[in-house]
């Protein structure tokens, strides 16, 4: 069934690219407004990033970004529909117009940015590739993995990173790449591999699915830079701006101390930066073709970056990830948004 869906998606993409007459860059914002909702490509289920709960509601840090874009365009975060995509399908789905944006824990790399006709609009999570191993192996470092079998997901940057890392350190390895993360984790769990490797955040998430999470440890080292961020089609700069600034608005809100709980009282703030953020001053929304209180709706419905981080992946969630490099720049992290000015 899965194969069939994939086949139809690929065929549809090819047919679209084949039959649709060449046309100028489309106006995604106009299309989205007419349709009445945003179509957002997400993962097939990665706790903390994009995962459906038992009622079928999606949540996660990537899902929140989709909601933020919907709030910016429509004033409500509910006008968004999610399309689960495999790593293999994601860019084709975006290129062919099947989704308006990807928020699918996707690594920003130069090749993807320049050769696939897509643009990355920012980084909503700084990640790196790591390894999970059985605790009883007694391994403390990735340097001790010489000769190991590695289970991973097909069609991601991990295969390449692992190859580069093991070769530069003169170590041997065997890569076993599965199309779906579930099968990769099961194979690791049954002992097919010594380590499961993918982005470190996903390791924490997948560890929750194991029969005995405590019997496995995530090694502290990371072997690559994996800046994960939203992706839009190249050539529609207005839509790219909306997605970019939806994320930036959440960062600026955290920096200015504006959150979903105090956004109403903040409207009376005398701080000009807050006034500009909430659309009480300037015409920043109108410049992007949406209403001026776009950021107000994002903060009101989704919250600022700290809220979405803590709600989905933070200390008090099952994932229990510290802010670390994802803290604001002034707290020693990498999250830095240009000012709204």
């Amino acid at each position, binding site marked *: 069934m899965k194969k069939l869906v994939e086949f139809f998606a690929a065929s549809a993409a090819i047919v679209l690219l084949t039959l649709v007459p060449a046309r100028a*860059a489309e106006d995604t914002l106009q299309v989205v407004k007419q349709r009445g909702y945003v179509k957002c490509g997400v993962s097939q289920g990665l706790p903390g990033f994009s995962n459906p709960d038992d009622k079928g509601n999606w949540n996660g840090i990537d899902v929140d970004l989709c909601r933020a874009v919907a709030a910016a365009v429509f004033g409500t975060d509910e006008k968004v529909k999610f399309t689960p995509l495999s790593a*293999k399908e994601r860019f084709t789905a975006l290129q062919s117009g099947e989704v308006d944006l990807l928020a699918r824990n996707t690594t920003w790399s130069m*090749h993807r940015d320049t050769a*696939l006709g897509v643009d990355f609009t920012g980084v909503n999570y700084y990640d790196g590739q790591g390894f999970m191993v059985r605790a009883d192996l007694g391994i403390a470092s990735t340097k001790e993995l010489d000769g190991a079998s590695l289970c991973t997901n097909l*069609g991601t940057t991990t295969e390449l990173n692992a190859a580069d890392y093991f070769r530069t350190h003169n170590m041997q390895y065997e890569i076993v*790449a599965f*199309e779906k993360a579930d099968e990769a984790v099961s*194979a690791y769990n049954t002992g097919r591999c*010594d380590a499961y490797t993918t982005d470190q955040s996903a390791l924490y998430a997948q560890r929750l699915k194991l029969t005995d999470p405590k019997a496995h440890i995530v090694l502290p080292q990371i072997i690559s830079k994996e800046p994960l961020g939203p992706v839009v089609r190249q050539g529609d700069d207005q839509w790219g701006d909306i997605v970019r600034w939806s994320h930036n608005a959440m960062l600026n809100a955290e920096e200015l101390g504006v959150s979903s709980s105090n956004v109403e009282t903040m409207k009376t703030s005398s701080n000009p930066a807050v006034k500009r953020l909430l659309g009480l001053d300037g015409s920043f929304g109108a410049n992007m073709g949406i209403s001026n209180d776009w950021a107000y709706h994002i903060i009101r419905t989704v919250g600022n970056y700290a809220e979405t981080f803590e709600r989905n992946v933070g200390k008090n969630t099952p994932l229990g990830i510290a802010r670390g490099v994802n803290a604001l720049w002034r707290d020693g992290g990498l999250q830095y948004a240009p000012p709204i000015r």
Partner: protein
Amino acid sequence: MISKLAFLVSRRDALLQLLTLALVVAGVGWLIANVADNLDRQNISSGFGFLNERAGFGISQTLVDYNEDDNYRQVLIVGLLNTLLVSVLGIIFASILGFFLGIGRLSRNWLISKIAMVYIEIFRNVPLLLQIMFWYFGVLRNLPSPRQAINFGDLMFLSNRGFALPSVSFTEGAGFYGLALLAIISAAIGLRRRAHILFLATGQMVAFWRPLGLVSVVVLLLAAYLAGVPWQVDIPALRGFNFRGGITVIPEFVALLLALSLYTAAFIAEIVRAGIMSVDQGQREAAAALGLSHNRALSLVVIPQSLRVIIPPLTSQYLNLTKNSSLAVAIAYPDIVSVFAGTALTQVGQAIEIIFITMMVYLILSLLTSWAMNQYNARIALVEKNQ
């Protein structure tokens, strides 16, 4: 007059056909140009230049030399060979098993025929993907870790990383053994023919295996005297996490081969049964009247005639098995869909070109299989006509 009219009509037909062909060619040309144009406008790379770029990723099973520095062309070859390996072996195993099941299904022994029936109904009616998963995780779960591997005389080791076997690499002088093998094969063919001619002439069954064994021993001893031991054996040994040295049959391969063979065998069994039942009862009675035993009647009279009915649908099953092998991607067997239309596709991002190449590969494989089976079909049909 009439001949002139016919000429004109045929001229008109030819013209119409030519026009249609031109339209089709133009249409395809327009589609291709439009794709290229659209890709260009969307700033998506196109063309086949990527085949020469460095692939950079590792593959768990390679039948030819491959490492991360090789290009995507080599990835294509590695994937293709892995697909071929599992398909060809799958076809052989499925044919053998299916043949016996089909005969067993018609057996007069109640138990055998019921066992065959139950087998066929189970394997034919459960989706193949589930069977692949079942065998993969079923096989994996029951195997020990490398440190507790099942040891076969310190030569072979079975664990959940696969079956580690000693490998043989040939050195100078191996050619003598190749010649020896050639000599043994020609001797076998010659002896067989001699036995057949003598059988036709005198009705006597002539010894075949004993002289062949004698020839083999002599030839092999001669080769050993001339060339000594021109090979090196590499025995796997546990080092760190895994066995190193030798060759390893990976569990993904075993599971896929098992699932494909068992699944397709069920279909082949039904085809064989239909073929055998299509042979007229009178043929069997005639064979019995000539004094042929049940088994000899089956192998000399019934099966050769049933092949004419069996071969065409059997070809379809072979094609199905080859195409079904693309389900390998679910259990990480590095076939062409997994490494080329999977990893390479996501790294390069040129879906149209890569899917096109992959489709062409399957098309060519299928056409070749059909062609070979049709050749065989024509040969057995000819025998029938001469009789």
